[in-house]
C-alpha cells in the first residue's frame, strides 16, 4: 500500500474548476515533485490534502493516506492528522511564522496539543529538533521571535516545527522560492538529509525544475489544473515528451548556455482549467497544436518506464488525426 494515493482529484470553486483530474501515488519515504507555473493548481492540491481549502471549495475524487479516505474523515480526525502525520512548509517563511509569538511556544505547542507533553519535555524536544535543522545556540533562540531570524533560518524553524511530530509526509510548497540562492541550496540539502534521517515522504511543490531534479524521484507536471506528464525524474526531465514539459526545460537559464542567446519562453500566458473546458488546456500556447487539440481533451497515455502523459501529438495524433 502506498503512503498516499490520489485519484482523480478535482477542486471546484463557484467561479470555476482549478484542479481537474489529478492522480498520483507517493510511496513511504519517496519524493514526488509537483511542477507547474503559478496558477496551475499545485498549492490548491496541497491544501486539499490537508483539508485547508476555503469553505466554498468543493473537493472531489479520492485521497487515501495510509489507507484511510481523507475526504470521508470527520474534521476533528483530519485536524489530528495535520501536523502530526502530514506536515506542511509554506513558501514565505517571513509571514508563515506568527510574528507575535516566540519561536519556542510555536514549536512546543505542537507537542503539547498533539501529544499532551508537559512544557518542560516539549521544550527539550523542540531544542533537539532545532539542533537537527542546524540552528545554533538553540536554547537562546527558543526565546526569540521570528523577526530576530533570517529568512533561511525561519524556513529551517518552520521545517523543524513540522517535523517535531515525525510525520510520514511533508508537503513543501515552494520552500526555497523566497530565499537567496545560497540559502536555497542549504535548505534543499537539509530537506534531503532529513528525509533520509526520518524516513519521510516528501511532496515537493515548485515551479523550478532544478529544485525538483535535485530532490525528487518522481515528477508530475501540472498545467491549468490538469496533469500534463508524470513519471520518474530522469525519464521525464531527461526525455520529456510533452511539449509543455519540453518548454519548461527549455526556459531554464543555464550557466553553460552561450552569452547573448535569448532564453526561450513559452508564448502566451497561463490559463486555468476553467478557461478551457474542452480540448487540451495547453493548446492555446502549444507550438504543435492542431484543430484536434482545441476540440478534444487528450486522454492519459502510459508510456514505457512507468511514465505517462496527456498529449495528442505525443500519442501520434490518434483517431482522425486531421491537421
Amino acid at each position, binding site marked *: 500500500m502506498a503512503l498516499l494515493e490520489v485519484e482523480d482529484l478535482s477542486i471546484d470553486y463557484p467561479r470555476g474548476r482549478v484542479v481537474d483530474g489529478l492522480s498520483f501515488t507517493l510511496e513511504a519515504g519517496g519524493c514526488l515533485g509537483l511542477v507547474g507555473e503559478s496558477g496551475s493548481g499545485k498549492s490548491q492540491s496541497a491544501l486539499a490534502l490537508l483539508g485547508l481549502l476555503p469553505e466554498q471549495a468543493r473537493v472531489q475524487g479520492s485521497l487515501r493516506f495510509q489507507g484511510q479516505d481523507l475526504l470521508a474523515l470527520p474534521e476533528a480526525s483530519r485536524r489530528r492528522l495535520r501536523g502530526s502525520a502530514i*506536515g506542511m512548509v509554506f513558501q*514565505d517563511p517571513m509571514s508563515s*511564522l506568527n510574528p507575535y509569538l516566540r519561536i519556542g511556544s510555536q514549536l512546543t505547542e505542537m507537542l503539547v496539543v498533539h501529544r499532551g507533553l508537559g512544557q518542560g519535555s516539549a521544550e527539550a524536544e523542540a531544542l533537539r529538533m532545532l539542533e537537527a535543522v542546524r540552528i545554533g545556540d538553540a536554547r537562546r533562540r527558543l526565546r526569540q521571535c521570528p523577526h530576530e531570524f533570517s529568512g533561511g533560518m525561519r524556513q529551517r524553524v518552520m521545517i523543524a516545527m513540522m517535523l517535531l511530530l515525525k510525520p510520514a509526509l511533508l508537503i513543501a510548497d515552494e520552500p526555497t522560492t523566497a530565499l537567496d540562492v545560497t540559502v536555497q541550496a542549504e535548505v534543499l540539502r537539509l530537506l534531503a538529509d532529513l528525509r533520509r534521517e526520518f524516513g519521510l515522504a516528501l511532496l515537493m511543490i515548485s515551479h523550478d525544475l532544478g529544485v525538483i531534479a535535485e530532490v525528487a524521484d518522481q515528477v508530475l507536471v501540472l498545467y491549468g489544473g490538469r496533469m500534463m506528464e508524470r513519471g520518474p525524474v530522469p525519464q521525464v526531465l531527461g526525455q520529456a515528451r510533452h511539449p509543455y514539459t519540453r518548454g519548461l526545460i527549455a526556459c531554464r537559464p543555464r550557466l553553460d548556455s552561450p552569452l547573448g542567446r535569448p532564453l526561450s519562453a513559452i508564448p502566451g500566458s497561463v490559463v486555468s482549467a476553467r478557461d478551457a473546458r474542452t480540448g487540451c488546456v495547453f493548446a492555446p500556447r502549444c507550438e504543435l497544436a492542431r484543430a484536434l487539440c482545441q476540440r478534444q481533451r487528450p486522454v492519459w497515455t502510459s508510456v514505457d518506464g512507468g511514465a505517462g502523459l496527456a498529449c495528442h501529438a505525443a500519442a501520434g495524433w490518434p483517431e482522425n488525426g486531421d491537421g
Partner: protein
Amino acid sequence: MSRYALLRLLTALPTLLLLVTLSFFLMRLAPGGPFDGERSLPPEIEASLRAEYHLDEPLPQQYLRYLGGLLRGDLGPSFQYQGFRVRELIAAGLPVSLSLGLLAMALALLLGGATGVVASLRPGSVLDRGLMSLAMLGISVPSYVVGPLLVLLFAVLLRWLPAGGWEPGRWSDLLLPVLALALPQIAAIARLLRGSMLEVLRQPYIRTARAKGLPESRVVLVHALKPALLPVLSYLGPATAGLITGSVVVEQVFGLPGIGRYFVQGALNRDYTLVLGVVLVYGAMIVLFNFLVDLLYGLLDPRLRRA
C-alpha cells in the same frame, strides 16, 4: 523598555501643562467671577474675599501661584464649596467616578471583544450581520440617550432597579450607569476587533497554525487574537476620553456623586480651582491610559520591544 517608558511619561507632562494653562486662562478671560452670586456682596467683603483667594493679584502671578501649589500637590481652595479644598472634593468623588469608568472599560473590553471575535469567525453570516447591525446602532446611540432609556425601561417600566442615586457599597446602583456608559464603547470595540480579526485571519501564519493541526479555538484565541488586539489597544486612548466625557453626563443622569458633576457646575459658578482640578484629573487619566497602552503595545508586539 523602562527608559522608553520614562521618556513617554516625561513627554506627557507638557501636554498636561498645556491643558492646565489653556483652561486656566480660558476661564479667567471669560466674563464673570466666583462671587457674582444672585445677591451681590458688599464691596468691602468681596474685596477681602478676593484678597483671601489671591484674586487681586495680577493674572500671571496667580498662574504661577497655582502651578506652585500643584508642585506641592495642592489644588487650591474651592470657591463654591467654601471651607473645602479642591483635593478633598475630588478625593470624595473620584472613587465613584473611577469605579464607574473602570467597570465600564472592563465591560466594554470583555463584551466588545467577545462580540468582535464571534462576528469575525463567520463573516457575512446571519449572526455576524446581526451583531454588526447592533454595533452600528450602539455607536449611533450616545450614553446620554442610552442612560435615560435604560432608566425608563428598568426603573420606570419594569421597576427592577433604582432610577438613580448612590449609596456607598450598593453596587447595584452602578449597574445601569456602567451599562449606559459602556454600550457605545462595546459597540466600537466590537466593530474594531471584528475588522482586525478578519485582517489577521487572512494572514499566512494563521494558515500555518491550521496546518499544524491546532484546534480552531487555539488558532483563534492564541494565534489570531493577540495581533488583532493591537488596533483595539490603540483605541483605548480615545476610548478613555470617550468614557470620561460620557461619565460627565452619566453621572448627571443617574445622580452619582462623582467628579463629573463638579465640572459643569464648577464652570457655571466660576469655581476656577475646582474646574481646573477636575480637568487636571481627567487629563492625567487620559495621559496615564495612553502610557499604559504604550507599555502594553511593547509587550504584545515583539518587534517594538527593542525599539
